[in-house]
């Protein structure tokens, strides 16, 4: 490996140190990533590369480093999920219906990153409108997982919806990435790619300028190659934003201070309802191993019960489509994106939306329209929101009993084959989020941390769930898992010379 590609192997923390010591310039670091991106186009992780803007930003970083005014992310090259509005740059939620959309404004989360000195490499692929668990619903085609099984060269999915983010981080195509999570879209792809992903508490990161899917569930968060890097990115992404009325007015702590702290006196709960019938033995074993690591680090492990767990996913598939059907009503061929003419204005709307949305998005809009339609609201949406209250209460009772964090598997399996779910029913795909969706329904923070490889050499992840606004504990306990399991990275089979 030559010296230039070596730079992409650095963590954010290491890269920051190298930049400050002038071991290399921000321009050199950005160049190394741009080369890696070019050589890895087969993964389809990026929808749009922005090399000119990246180099300009890197040069500005070099000037600030020389002046001694470097920010906490100065010169760090990042990939941005296509769901985030970036001024003057392709922001289309990986959908055909937003063709040509280049917003005239910048999302709060990305503004925070640029304020702190980060460099934008491009926009990352994702499931259309963040609806999917395999990154196969993108208008721009599926993303490949940089990981392959030891037994086969078949392509695997990176998970979704933040599949481009996870794939790019795992394949060293950016130092870290932004992502979003409505039912597991940060944590499931992180688990499938051996990366770290955290969904913060609802209200911790501003949703302003992020294309809305299900507004009461959506949260932004980072995907990174280490727990510490995720903490560094969270320090910048989290903020209190007057432009988002659901942004909660709680100060942002320095999450990196938690890294390396002891777990002594901490109580970790293992919810018995997460032990599913027919769950692969490797998942069960990894979960037990994770509990042992936390115990060795001084935590007390206790069994807990979250009785309404099994109802979280069906309730989610009422609440999320209902909110999506309302949010996606704005794509009507008038104000932005695609327009397909019709006989009259209603015909134009119908033709535009028929051509512009993919199959999964249409399915969810129709389910959402149905459950909100006259006569069905009480039976579906109201009922689901009541079930949601019970799910949240389960967690509250566990925390009231003294549990500091909850340990679960992140996913019910390792990454599966690209196209392998093509003939499955929609519900089978939805089951991917069975361990992650409860966290969105209750608005809690959850982190997925790599916990080693399975027998086929594929990464498995563990999830830690915390109290509201206690991301700090997740970083602290997450670091213990990372220290015990070690960081993992795939063989670079995708490189084009």
């Amino acid at each position, binding site marked *: 490996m030559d010296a230039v590609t070596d730079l992409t192997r650095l963590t954010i923390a290491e890269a920051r140190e190298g930049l400050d010591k002038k071991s290399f310039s921000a321009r050199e670091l950005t160049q190394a990533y741009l080369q890696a991106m070019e050589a890895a186009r087969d993964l389809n992780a990026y929808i749009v590369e922005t090399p000119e803007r990246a180099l300009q930003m890197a040069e500005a970083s070099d000037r600030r480093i020389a002046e001694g005014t470097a920010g906490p992310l100065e010169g760090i090259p990042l990939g941005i999920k296509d769901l985030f509005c970036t001024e003057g740059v392709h922001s289309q939620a990986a959908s055909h219906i937003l063709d040509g959309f*280049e917003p005239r404004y910048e999302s709060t989360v990305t503004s925070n990153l640029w304020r702190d000195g980060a460099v934008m490499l491009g926009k990352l692929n994702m499931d259309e409108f963040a609806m999917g668990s395999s990154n196969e619903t993108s208008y721009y085609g599926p993303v490949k997982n940089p990981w392959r099984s030891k037994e086969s060269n078949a392509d695997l999915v990176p998970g979704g919806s933040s599949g481009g983010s996870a794939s790019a981080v795992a394949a060293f195509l950016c130092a870290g990435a932004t992502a979003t999570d409505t039912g597991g879209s940060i944590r499931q792809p992180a688990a499938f790619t051996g990366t770290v992903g955290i969904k913060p508490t*609802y209200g911790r990161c501003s949703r302003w300028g992020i294309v809305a899917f299900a507004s009461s569930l959506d949260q932004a968060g980072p995907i990174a190659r280490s727990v510490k890097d995720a903490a560094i990115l969270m320090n910048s992404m989290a903020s209190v934003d*007057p432009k988002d009325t659901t942004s909660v007015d709680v100060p942002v702590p320095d999450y990196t201070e938690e890294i390396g702290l002891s777990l002594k006196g901490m109580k970790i709960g293992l919810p018995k309802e997460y032990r599913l019938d027919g769950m692969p033995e490797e998942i069960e074993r990894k979960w037990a191993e994770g509990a042992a690591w936390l115990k060795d680090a001084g935590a007390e492990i206790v069994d807990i019960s979250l009785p309404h767990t099994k109802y979280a996913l069906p309730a989610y598939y009422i609440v999320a489509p209902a909110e999506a059907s309302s949010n996606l009503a704005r794509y009507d061929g008038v*104000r932005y*994106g695609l327009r397909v003419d019709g006989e009259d204005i209603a015909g134009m*709307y119908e033709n535009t939306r*028929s051509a512009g949305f993919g199959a999964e998005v249409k*399915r969810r809009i129709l389910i959402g329209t149905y459950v909100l339609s006259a006569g069905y609201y009480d039976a579906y949406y109201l009922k689901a929101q009541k079930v949601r209250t019970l799910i949240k209460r389960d967690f509250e009772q566990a925390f009231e009993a003294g549990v500091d964090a909850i340990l679960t598997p992140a996913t019910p399996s390792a990454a599966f084959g690209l196209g392998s779910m093509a003939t499955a029913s929609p519900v089978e795909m939805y089951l991917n989020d069975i361990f992650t969706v409860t966290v969105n329904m209750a608005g809690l923070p959850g982190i997925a941390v790599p916990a080693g490889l399975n027998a086929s050499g594929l990464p498995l992840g563990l999830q830690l769930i915390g109290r509201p606004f206690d991301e700090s504990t997740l970083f602290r306990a997450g670091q213990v898992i990372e220290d015990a399991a070690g960081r993992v990275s795939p063989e670079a089979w995708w490189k084009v010379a």
Partner: protein
Amino acid sequence: MSVDVATVKRIAHLARIAVTEEEAAALQGELNTILDWVEQLGEVDVADVEPMTSVVATTMRKRRDEVTDGGRATDVTANAPETEDGYFIVPKVVE
């Protein structure tokens, strides 16, 4: 509860999504699979349970009623498929 093809077409029209006969038939099966699956929520006793209105206990933030932005008609219409003099152009609605 399950949906028939006529209901699928009605919902699709409400959602302003044109569907062909084949699409409506396929969607009927898919939607019924999902609706059958969410039926299990019927097992949950929700008597005396309040529906969730906010996932984080917080009072709604208010701001002063003042102009903080505006006067950006060109920015607003910049991404529209068809515009003229700062207006969105749509097919004729009234004769």
